[in-house]
């Protein structure tokens, strides 16, 4: 390893990580830097062997210092103002930072605005802040760098926050966005001035939007969502089902613009220009600018920019009469990103992108050497698709949780076809600015390769039963895995006689990593997930049983089961649920459970005793049958037993004729949790509350019925429960049934109200026998609105 920049990158990364994890606090960093400087001075003349280590210590300090300097939070007075006056109509001016692509069918657009002025009663005063603006295209297009005036309802930017799940709010807060302004209506956004002409991202956004508009006319509607994703980096037009096919076939990475795409562009363009007899230097310049243009126009994702930087280094090597060195190019790209924004180290795209390339560089020879019998034409691609898996595996497991077995084969076929798609997109985009009919010929030609990729994805995802679900590894497993990988890499460089013992060590380490992949002991806990409007509660009882009550909402646009509940469970190392209970058959409770039934090993499913023929219930029953999950119909008086955990059922009555309202047929049950107890009530309303046996329901923690609506929570009911805590599972946006008087009613009776819209997920855990209440928002340091 005599590549100095690789060591510098590693040292900076170490420093950054140490600072980020709080291992190098305060004084340590300047001390490291000063020590390195002194040592460098002392050893400069005498000891050339120690000098590199000193320099590395210096870079560790520099990486850490750079992280610390970047941590000073941006002051956001506008956010403070909004937090103190919730839901107020405001008028602000500012400069646009970024915009989403506007495509037909998607009316609601987003942009991020750097606010500098607030207008209040025609007097304007300066104020700083950064907000996400939700607006509609009817007001005309807006691009980065433009100055705009926005009028709308401002609120603290809030979305669902759950343990182990990366959500929209994390995305916003990582970008320094703290407020949201809802600027619906045609006159809510006015353009005050255009961006200065020299802003490259303004040009990139304009060019991107122009392409989106042209492609919509030049291409068949069927392929548009795919083209928007791979050519313009805009994924949201893809339907959920289609996206899942790509996930389960292991080809989802081709949908987000990454290094693969940039490399395809660079490689094929270089090849084509060479065939056209273009000289080396102009060719290099052409390829470099094309790749940068593509990376910018496709939304400047970290992987694409990384690839563009690496292509530039490759090409400029030729201009400097040197040979390119991939390891150094990768390291330099990493250093550039770390200097640009040290937080990018925690960007999943950054991690996967760098880990994949590093993995190929290190391990490709391992596979190539063992494949002498394979035809040379296939050897490279096969070795690459195997080598690329090794280092990123735990990262991919932690973020995607899927290890599709079809992936290597599916990618081997899909990536060459993707090259064809990208070229047809390029030709279509180019021609569409010249002559539309010609563009349409190329545009319709994309049908064939895209249908082929879609077919590969479908075929791959039909092998889903063979795929493995990967839970997020524990820290031990994580460390052990990378030790094993390092040992495996070492087998490639050590002496022959040591190789075998190295290989054995490495295999052992891999085995240990998989043994300790999941936590060995679990804390008992009850977690009310923040699923917006809807319910989802995860229970790990004191005796270790896992139980899920409800799974949140699921619609054609979003599935809480897939987006929140499943990742939350996988992040906790849970793949088996001893029981799943659907309190009743409303979509905001049962919807998300379908995904859970499909993807978890479920012991039993419980439903209320009264069957109905609602479509969702029938679908749920059918899925359970398909997966071989027994269904238990429960009614008042049943003493349910899940492992060692008893769940007495208080409701519904077996043949209750008082109502046919699904809400009133919700299951009511009680959980004893060490010395405390929980009452789960689903969405019961007054009638059901009145029918309950008031003597049995006295508990410490009450899940407030029906999301805190005034259909429920009658005073006799509350008095019978006499809870210490009342948890309300409700959303902050969209549909909302919670009523403030109900919240006040609980408070007046001396009950602490815990709301998921304020606190995020609420976790009750036993810490040394004592009940401990945690708010996920508080844990992450996100703002919590007060009354």
């Amino acid at each position: 390893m005599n590549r100095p920049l690789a060591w510098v990158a590693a040292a900076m990364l170490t420093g950054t990580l140490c600072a980020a994890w709080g291992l190098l606090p305060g004084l340590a960093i300047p001390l490291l830097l000063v020590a390195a400087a002194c040592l460098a001075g002392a050893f400069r003349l005498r000891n050339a062997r120690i000098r590199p280590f000193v320099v590395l210590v210096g870079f560790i300090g520099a990486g850490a210092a750079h992280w610390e300097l970047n941590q000073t939070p941006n002051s956001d007075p506008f956010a403070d103002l909004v937090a103190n006056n919730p839901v107020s109509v405001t008028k602000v001016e500012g400069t646009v930072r970024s915009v989403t692509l506007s495509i037909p069918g998607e009316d609601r657009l987003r942009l991020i605005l750097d606010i500098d002025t607030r207008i209040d009663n025609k007097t304007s005063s300066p104020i700083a802040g950064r907000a996400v603006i939700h607006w509609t295209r009817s007001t005309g297009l807006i691009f980065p760098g433009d100055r705009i005036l926005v009028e709308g309802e401002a609120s603290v930017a809030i979305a669902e926050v759950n343990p182990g799940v990366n959500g929209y709010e994390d995305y916003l807060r990582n970008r320094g966005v703290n407020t949201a302004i809802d600027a619906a209506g045609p006159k809510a956004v006015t353009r005050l001035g255009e961006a200065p002409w020299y802003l490259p991202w303004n040009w990139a956004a304009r060019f991107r939007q122009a392409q989106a508009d042209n492609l919509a006319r030049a291409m068949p509607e069927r392929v548009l969502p795919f083209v928007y994703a791979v050519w313009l980096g805009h994924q949201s037009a893809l339907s959920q089902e289609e996206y899942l096919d790509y996930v389960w076939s292991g080809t989802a990475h081709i949908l987000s613009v990454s290094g693969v795409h940039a490399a395809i562009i660079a490689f094929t363009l270089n090849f084509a220009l060479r065939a056209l007899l273009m000289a080396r230097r102009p060719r290099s310049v052409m390829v470099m600018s094309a790749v940068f243009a593509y990376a910018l126009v496709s939304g400047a994702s970290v992987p694409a920019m990384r690839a563009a930087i690496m292509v530039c280094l490759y090409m400029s090597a030729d201009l400097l009469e040197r040979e390119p060195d991939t390891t150094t190019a990768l390291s330099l790209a990493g250093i550039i990103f770390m200097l640009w924004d040290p937080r990018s180290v925690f960007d999943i795209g950054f991690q996967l992108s760098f880990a994949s390339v590093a993995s190929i560089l290190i391990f490709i020879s391992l596979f190539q050497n063992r494949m002498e019998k394979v035809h040379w034409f296939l050897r490279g691609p096969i070795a690459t698709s195997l080598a690329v898996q090794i280092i990123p595996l735990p990262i991919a497991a932690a973020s995607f949780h899927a290890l599709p077995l079809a992936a290597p084969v599916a990618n081997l076929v899909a990536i060459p076809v993707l090259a064809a798609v990208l070229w047809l997109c390029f030709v279509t985009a180019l021609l569409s600015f010249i002559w539309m009919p010609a563009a349409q010929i190329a545009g319709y030609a994309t049908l064939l390769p895209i249908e082929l990729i879609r077919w590969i994805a479908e075929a791959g995802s039909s092998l889903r039963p063979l795929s493995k679900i990967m839970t997020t590894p524990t820290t031990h497993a994580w460390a052990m895995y990378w030790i094993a990988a390092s040992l495996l890499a070492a087998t490639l460089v050590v002496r022959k006689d040591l190789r075998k013992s190295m290989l054995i060590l490495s295999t052992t380490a891999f085995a240990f990593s998989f043994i300790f992949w999941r936590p060995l002991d679990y804390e008992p806990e009850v977690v009310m997930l923040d699923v917006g409007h809807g319910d989802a509660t995860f229970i790990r009882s004191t005796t270790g049983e896992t139980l899920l009550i409800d799974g949140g909402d699921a619609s054609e646009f979003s599935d809480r089961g897939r987006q929140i509940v499943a990742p939350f469970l996988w992040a906790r190392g849970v793949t088996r649920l001893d029981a799943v209970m659907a309190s009743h058959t409303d979509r905001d409770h049962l919807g998300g459970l379908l995904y859970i039934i499909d993807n978890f090993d479920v012991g039993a499913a419980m439903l209320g005793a009264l069957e109905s023929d609602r479509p969702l219930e029938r679908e749920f029953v059918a899925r359970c049958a398909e997966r071989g999950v027994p269904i238990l119909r429960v009614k008042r008086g049943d003493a349910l037993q899940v492992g060692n955990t008893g769940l007495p059922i208080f409701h519904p009555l077996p043949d209750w004729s008082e109502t046919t309202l699904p809400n009133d047929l919700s299951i009511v049950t009680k959980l004893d949790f060490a010395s405390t107890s929980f009452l789960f009530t689903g969405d019961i309303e007054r009638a059901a509350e009145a029918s309950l046996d008031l003597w049995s329901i006295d508990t410490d923690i009450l899940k407030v019925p029906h999301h805190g609506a005034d259909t429920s929570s009658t005073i006799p009911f509350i008095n019978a429960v006499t809870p210490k805590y009342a948890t309300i599972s409700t959303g902050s946006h969209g549909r909302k049934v919670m009523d403030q008087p109900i919240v006040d009613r609980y408070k007046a009776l001396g009950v602490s109200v815990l709301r998921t819209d304020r606190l995020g997920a609420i976790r009750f855990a036993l810490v040394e026998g004592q009940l401990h209440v945690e708010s996920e928002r508080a844990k992450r340091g996100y703002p919590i609105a007060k009354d």
Partner: protein
Amino acid sequence: MNKGDISAAAREWTLTVKNLTFPIFCQQCRIRLLTDDNGYFCPTCWESSPRIERPFCPICGKPHRAGVGLGTRSNFRCGPCSTQKKPYPYDRVLAAARYDGAIQLAIKRLKFNDKPRIARPLGELLREQAERELDCDAYDYIVPVPLHRVRRRARGFNQAELLAREILPLFSDAVIDTSLVRLRPTHVQSRLHTDKQRKESVRGAFGLSRDANFDKKRVLLIDDVVTTGATIHECATVLKKGGATVVDVLAVALAIPGSDADSADLGRKE
């Protein structure tokens, strides 16, 4: 600080930055190289690659086996060349090195790995040998062995032409002439296994373009490597037909059959 110092410092810094951002390694032993002197091979590997030194056959260029004519610094014909009166269409072959070691690797990288800059150290080798062994004023034309235009386009350059350009300054009266052309694509010689195959593959492959004028001219034919001689045989025949009085061949490397150097490369029957 005077101007010279500044430019020297600038050069040193440029080299440091280049070494940091684009480290280069010996293609044979992977040791790191810190200068652009050779750019691809460390001095040890480069120097240890066997050269062709006197005594060698002045006709076919083959070095005499160690022990034969030991101590003589003058060349003499080898067995086959001295028994035949006029064995080859070309007058002589001069090669700078055996097709072996670092130089073999260098030629392969030059041709098959798109690294035209290796032509520089190879050209230097060629220049040294030409300076020692050739009368540099005795040629009118320097003719690189041509590539078929399709392969030339695919490769982006003709390695023999690059080598010809490297040695051109040595030949005060000569110019590079490219009117010898390859009429049809042939197989890469080193991938053919028998002598016969190779001869067959180049028969009639070369010709002269319309503006060619070799009448009573002395020609130096340049090639990267002479394996069986089939290619230069064919080229020299065409040139002689075109009226050339002298056709000498200058190549970087000469593959010597029977030497263990590259039996794999030369095929099984040799």
